[in-house]
């Protein structure tokens, strides 16, 4: 099968891979690049567990062709901390008990990060809308909204 070379930035590191034609981004990230943080829940674009940021915008990796990320920047939850310190969103999720089984958490964090990067002071409704593409079966969503609000306060220096 023909393979296409694709180069992209993955969480501050350069990645260069040969991908099968028609391969989707989640398979390439997980099995190709070895970043297991995005999760596959449906492969149909309905659950959001595979949410990654492409040039800062949330995308569903299961519906993104790997070949289309040539030259782009991809952020995943695996690189969210970026060092020994956790990102305020991660700390807030831990303190608010915003994860139980944890399977939706990677995607939630990416959706939340994209929101806070463009809207540092969201209302609860704006948070709900930003994560409305990410299904969670365990928490009932409220602890997640609480965590994003708390993180936004911290990041603004307000709390």
């Amino acid at each position: 099968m023909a393979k296409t070379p694709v180069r992209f930035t993955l969480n501050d590191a350069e990645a260069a891979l040969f991908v099968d034609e028609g391969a989707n981004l989640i398979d390439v990230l997980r099995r190709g690049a070895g970043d297991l943080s995005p999760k596959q829940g449906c492969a149909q674009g309905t659950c959001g567990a595979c949410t990654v940021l492409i040039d800062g915008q949330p995308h569903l990796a299961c519906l993104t062709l790997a070949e289309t990320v040539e030259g782009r920047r991809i952020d995943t939850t695996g690189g969210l901390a970026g060092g020994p310190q956790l990102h305020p969103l991660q700390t807030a999720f831990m303190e608010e008990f915003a994860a139980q089984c944890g399977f939706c958490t990677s995607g939630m964090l990416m959706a939340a990060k994209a929101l806070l990067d463009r809207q540092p002071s969201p209302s609860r409704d704006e948070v709900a809308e930003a994560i409305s593409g990410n299904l969670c079966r365990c928490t009932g969503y409220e602890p997640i909204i609480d965590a994003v609000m708390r993180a936004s306060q911290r990041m603004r220096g307000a709390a």
Partner: protein
Amino acid sequence: MTSIEFRKDLFADERDDTLKEIGQPTIRQDILGHVTGRTPYYDDHLFDGLLHMRAVRSPHHHARIRSIDTREAERMPGVRRVATARDVPNNLNTLLSLINFGKDDEPLCAHDKVRYKGETVAWVIADTERLAREAVAQVRVDYEVLPHVLDPEEALKPGAPVVNEVYPNNSFDYHERYDHQKLRFGDVNAAFARADHIVEAEYQMSPIEQAPIETCGAIAAPEQNDRYVCYTNTQALFFSLGTTAKLLDIPSSRLHFIGGTAGGGFGGKVDSIVEPTAVLGAILTGRPVRFAWDREEEMQVGAPRGAERWRLKDGVMADGRIVAREFTGFFDSGAYTRLSSYAIVKGTGHLPGPYFIPNVAANVYCCVTNRTPATAMRGFGITAVDFAIECQMDRVAEAVGMDPIELRILNAYRDGDMKAHRRKAKNTALIECCQVAAGKAQWPLSGEAMAQSSLTGGGTPERVAIPETVTDDEGRIGERRAGRTASTAPSRNGRGRVPSGQHGATIVAAPPQNPDMQIEADRIGHRMGSETPPSAMGPASGAAQPSAPYRPASQTGGSIVPPRPTPPPAAPPPAAPSVPPSAPPPASPSYGTQPPSAPPPAATPGAPHDAPYQRPAAPEPEPYRPDKPFSRGTRRPGSSPFLSGTRRR
């Protein structure tokens, strides 16, 4: 938004709240992994040369398989192996065989017949998931479509298509005697006759999906030392390991199962289908193999919570006391029984709900139909019947013109009350929950309702008595299908009598095998009582004087907005032992070890039994043992004996 309060004032005298780690809101051990994406789910293990396995599935509810033609699929690019039922060494099982309950009724892969839409008829193992899907589409199966049955009550009728020859009556066989599980306590028909109101209704729950965000899946690979490793998200590691060992006829010591973290389960990851399938793939190819359900399979092929239908009939007095309750319940188990046979017994033990009702009868059926088999889901065996019971309680409240919460409190069970399965209630708290919930919602209750307590008023002679009970032997296995029994409800004409006061021994936990294995009584944080011996069937020890029977002040709903409930009067605590008593060894539990000294009472019409009531012994459950002694395992032609599939991470 959401708020939570801990009502430490209630039952405070039964607790020591000064423990060190218990009661602390400690951050979860695993949440750091969740927020950094490092938590390893089964699929977060990379293997070089991983193969992908997908199933060919039946499009029909019920059909005979005339032939399966896999030649086209085998030729397709990237296809490593196509497998069918012939490749499964021991292709018949039921999950609960591991605890010796039920008969083996389900193949891992269909061979002569398919019994539900979506059942597996073959597998393809290929280099990529896409190639596997394309090859699956090229497998040709010649089906002879058969009539199917989808309604659980229709399935029980004479002439219904037989779904599974192991249960030719389309129902699970209980105790090798009846096609349902019975519950009989007292005489519901006599109580109905003297009741002021009869309230009857039917309730139906459709199947629902556990829908965890992570679907069921497993990756199996040959490991060093001639074993197979299997990464899985099962909810029951050893259940899956044991099921795999049995289906694939491989000693359990050659299986190494790794799991412990599931992306949600809710009961949907207990069926142990993906593990034997993945391990079979690894055995057949000598490579790492991934087998997982996609979302569509998780929705319609993965077992749901089964549909249930319940009919309830209550006999109620004008003052709101429920004096009789009768249940007829149908669990739609689908094509294979899996865990449903057990759910019926669990549900039966739950009846009639957390209420003191002196006459109870139930017939509960595990029905086999041509649909996706059902399995556990959060609340298994209980959710649907609780829906029925609580909607029914509201109907009863309306029939007698009483406030719904006051009705619950009036009928609530209390410490020491006898339950329909002939065990005394203890550690109850229904009344307090009703009072506290009403307080939070500003739902007015009468002062009398607010004064009730789980600790008082229960276990009085009339509430602890086991009444003389009417029994019947309707619904013996096979009678229904032969047309000799039409009604599924508990019999109106029971001729058997079990004398009042008959009960068996309560089963308690096995004591610690070593005295060092007990925590000191002053560190456990609560009183460690001992089980009230069954011979002392008096009121619960420590209860205060039973209060006057509760009658609500007014039946049109009081106007008092309840104050915060005052804590119930403290029952005098028994002397705290310095070392917790070990639970008394179960004195030959009444089930399973004693052969009957008299034959079970035959139901001769009209003759009350004078022989003492004997429960016939159920066979003592055998621990699961693989049939064959440990061996070095099977060599299959074509499978590589060499280690392959190096794990990268």
